[in-house]
């Protein structure tokens, strides 16, 4: 995977989401040593010439802030389902842009939200990028099915 998409590219793609949609909300920067808080998780599956998935997780505070910009409402006023939806769009954009760099053709699933049920899947971690926004962590992971290289 690292040959196909570097951690720098994953970070860049994620930062582009912030630059486009949250331009006034401060920069997303590489985080070192920040404990990952994964209150909200979402993923998209990629299938075809390359198979695997892209997962984004973040704290509820970050998720609420993203949603508050996208829904143009106060963070406290947003329903939890809408908060998850906003993170779903984040993973759609990040995953979709990663897909475009991978060998084609592939298809992209709609965002799959962690609704508190079973979230483990048979996969091996390919890449993990930890970013920080206003002191809060955002984690982007790329997974591949077990046994594939």
């Amino acid at each position, binding site marked *: 995977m690292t040959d196909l998409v570097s951690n720098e*590219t994953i970070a*860049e*793609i994620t930062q*582009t989401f912030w*630059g*486009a949609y949250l331009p006034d909300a401060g920069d997303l920067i590489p985080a070192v040593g920040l404990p990952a808080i994964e209150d909200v998780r979402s993923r998209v599956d990629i299938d075809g010439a390359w198979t695997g998935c892209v997962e984004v997780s973040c704290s509820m505070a970050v998720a609420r802030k993203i949603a508050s910009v996208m829904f143009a409402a106060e963070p406290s006023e947003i329903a939890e389902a809408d908060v998850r939806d906003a993170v779903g769009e984040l993973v759609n954009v990040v995953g979709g*842009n990663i897909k*475009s*760099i991978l060998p084609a053709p592939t298809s992209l699933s709609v965002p799959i939200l962690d609704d508190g049920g079973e979230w483990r899947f048979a996969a091996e971690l390919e890449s993990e990028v930890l970013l920080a926004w206003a002191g809060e962590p955002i984690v982007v992971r790329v997974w591949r099915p077990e046994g594939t290289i």
Partner: protein
Amino acid sequence: MTTATAEDFQYLQGFLLDRSAIVLSEDKQYLVETRLLPVVQRHGVESITDLVRAIRRGDKTVETAVVDAMTTNETSWFRDSAPFDALRNLVLPELVASNVTRRRLAIWSAACSTGQELYSVAMLLDSEFSDLASWHVDLHGTDLSTTVVQRARAGSFTALEINRGLPATLLVRYFRREGAQFVIADSIRARVRFELFNLARPWPPMQDYDVILLRNVLIYFDVETKRNVLERVRGRLRPGGFLLLGTAETTRGLVDGFRPIPVGATTVFRREES
């Protein structure tokens, strides 16, 4: 220390006026800070004051980085489409007719930024003026920023840049994907050339052009510099050649010898036959 002191700001005003003829008004303090803090981080110094110190010392790397950061590189492809409609519907047909025996055409994008404007012209010529394929066409782009000129030469753009006013038909026809970047076709890149050039400094001897694009540059200059640049532009434009300015810009009240011609939603300025 993230703020610029009054002294730093005053020094940068003078430096940028001298280096790039940019007028930095008093209300632009925030701009200095937002643009220069990344430079502070990149150069591993503590503050904007340190950057100013480095410039005073004559550190060319820092000078270049500061000019690059402070020069607006906001650019898009067929930016506010009206000027390109003017090229398509009036300027190019006129020039194709008047230059038919010379079979030469020279176009200068005089503040080309990362190249979108000149590449747009090249794509327009290729897709809609195929008669010109056998002509000698010089498409010349210049900018005062080294980084920007290098990026223009590379012809490689992010999705965010590609989104800015590039028609989808041209995107699929003239760009290929390389990783996260969209790269312009070699056939288009081979037709353009990009060079470093500072409009506000003395100009080297240069050829004459049929079209000069000088869009959204004058707005950054004071009146004296505007007049001076426009006079020199007129000197490099062939009689009957066209000057294209930004939407809010004009030659009126600044320089003689241009006839404004309204075309669609814009106005082009034609050099009078003298």
